[in-house]
């Protein structure tokens, strides 16, 4: 009974919904990045690395210029730069996309770790360098309950949802989107119609750099205002899972990210509930909830998620 009461209290607490949103935001961005890349046919396991680079660069430039938005911009640029390496290796040189992705994660981890000392004069983590402030929307923050959820929240959360809408529009409503979907599914067919397969794939991968870079920027200057080595904590892989769970669709990826955000917010609140009496060392086990829930959802409700047919296969003309 106590447990039910605890759960009930969690669900009626507006902060649960706010933490859900902020926990989901980096996943939404990163899984969108995955969607862009994979619907054009390039597997992108490097999201974790791109996020890390984005988190790092945004802190560096925020620190150098004092302007967080320059930090955000540079996160996007650096994300695109790393994504470009992925595109170059996997599109131009037809390399194995999974291996290239893991290589880029290593490179991102190495480069960010390595540059700490020369740039900040100390390794490991930086001091607080500044943060994108939460925005307060006057009307909204007065609404009961809702105001507590989104009345004062990071602009990145809004950006994430805007990005989903934008992406849905781009992918399903524009000529570019049509071409993206076609080169991921049947690049030969697209090629015979004069669609520039390589160009579109580059676009998809570079866009994944934009989104994953933003995901990284959110984690550092969007949330905590500093950089710590490996601070992405595996979210790139979770985003990958969210993308598959969301069936390679921006809206689906968003829903999967929200599911994940909600269950980790739930796990956090369960740990922090004064109604649940377990020994302190058992508490870390609550963190398993999101992962178990995801398995149940993917096995029980989602079933087959079919990747684009040409996903992961380098396109070579005339083969």
């Amino acid at each position: 009974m106590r447990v039910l009461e605890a759960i009930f209290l969690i669900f009626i607490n507006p902060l649960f919904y706010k933490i859900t949103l902020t926990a989901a935001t980096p996943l939404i961005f990163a899984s969108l990045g995955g969607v862009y890349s994979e619907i054009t046919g390039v597997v992108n396991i490097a999201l974790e690395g791109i996020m890390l680079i984005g988190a790092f660069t945004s802190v560096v430039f925020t620190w150098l210029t004092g302007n967080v938005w320059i930090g955000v911009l540079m996160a996007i640029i650096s994300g695109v730069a790393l994504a470009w390496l992925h595109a170059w290796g996997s599109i131009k040189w037809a390399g194995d996309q999974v291996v290239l992705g893991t290589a880029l994660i290593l490179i991102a981890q190495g480069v960010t770790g390595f540059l700490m000392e020369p740039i900040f004069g100390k390794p490991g983590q930086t001091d607080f360098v500044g943060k994108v402030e939460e925005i307060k929307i006057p009307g909204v923050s007065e609404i009961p309950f809702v105001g507590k959820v989104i009345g004062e929240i990071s602009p990145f959360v809004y950006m994430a949802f805007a990005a989903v809408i934008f992406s849905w529009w781009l992918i399903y409503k524009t000529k570019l989107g049509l071409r993206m979907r076609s080169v991921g599914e049947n690049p030969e067919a697209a090629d015979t119609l004069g669609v520039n397969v390589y160009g579109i794939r580059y676009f998809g991968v570079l866009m994944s750099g934009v989104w994953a870079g933003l995901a990284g920027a959110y984690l550092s200057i969007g949330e905590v205002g500093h950089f710590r080595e490996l601070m992405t904590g595996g979210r790139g892989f979770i985003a990958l899972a969210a993308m598959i769970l969301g069936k390679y669709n921006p809206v689906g990826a968003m829903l999967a990210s929200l599911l994940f955000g909600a269950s980790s917010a739930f796990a956090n609140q369960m740990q922090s509930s004064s109604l649940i009496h377990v020994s302190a060392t058992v508490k870390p086990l609550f963190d398993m909830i999101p992962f178990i829930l995801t398995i149940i959802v993917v096995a029980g409700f989602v079933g087959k998620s079919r990747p684009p047919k040409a996903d992961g296969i380098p396109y070579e003309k005339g083969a």
Partner: protein
Amino acid sequence: AIMVTDTGGLGDKSFNDGTWAGIKRAADELGIKAKVIQSYEQADYISNLSKAAEEIQKEPDGGIVYAVGFMMTDALFQVAQQFPDVYFAGIDIAPPTDAVPPNVITFLFKEQESAFLVGYIAAATTRVGKVGFIGGIPIPPVERFRYGFETGVKVYNDLHGTNVTILKGYANSFSDPKKGKDLALAQFAGGVDIIFHASGAVGNGVIEAAKEKMVSLVGSEDLSKILEYAFDKGGFFAMGVDVDQDYMAPGVVLASAMKGVDTASYMGVMWAYNGEWVPGVHVLGLAENGVRISPMKYTKGLVSNRTLAELEYLVTMIKKGTLVIPDTEEALKSFRTPKIEFPF
């Protein structure tokens, strides 16, 4: 002197950084070389310590090898046996057996003592009767911080007839600040107003969460405005760990439970070179200046003078040994607040 880090590496703002600071200070004073090797994975410990010991053997004046972090316990003792002519020191390392070889010293800290003090402050300062604790992974030093914190709250309750309760949580990580922030926000949502963290970089997120909540309440990041508000109405606070983290969010970090790792490592190097080597385990607490609490540069005004005076008194009791803070789960369970009569 050569220091081998655990896989956390330099930049943890905790034992690796602290040890390195102390070694460098000693090396500068002595005019010797100091080096650091960072371990990539657990399997590196033995080979890195062995290599470091070989390096030291080449030095005409000898030297000392530092193993930093409880993860290196087994490796340190295995390697030290192989190099009896090289001095070894371990930070945060408890010997697996009672017999410590003559070439080894290890330092342990009574984290519980400094955590006791911040727990006491938290209990005295909370306006809602609820405080929080966030740990990284429940490893022994983290747990000792928790035991101390819980004891501090309990003693305050017992002495003042209050009923301050504690929410506890762990991040399962030492390096994910976002997780720390989410967990802290969850605890704030659960009704606490002060959170003590012992969670490495995760704590940066905890501090950020408190700051965000506080700034939102006050409507300004200005220190004097924050303090003014806090003095009148309370607010949201974090408490730091390992080093003085008060500066990370002035006015919001109420106090930090510090651990003098640098003092220990400085001492070790000095002993090795000055021939004052005292092998064995050195447990450093308040009495030995191994742990302490931050001077509360910004926030002293938020804690009542009476509380500060009580703290002074409790510190002397601990130093004298008349108040023993539990360092195990069992000791915590059976801890009963002794009779304490403040002389004022």
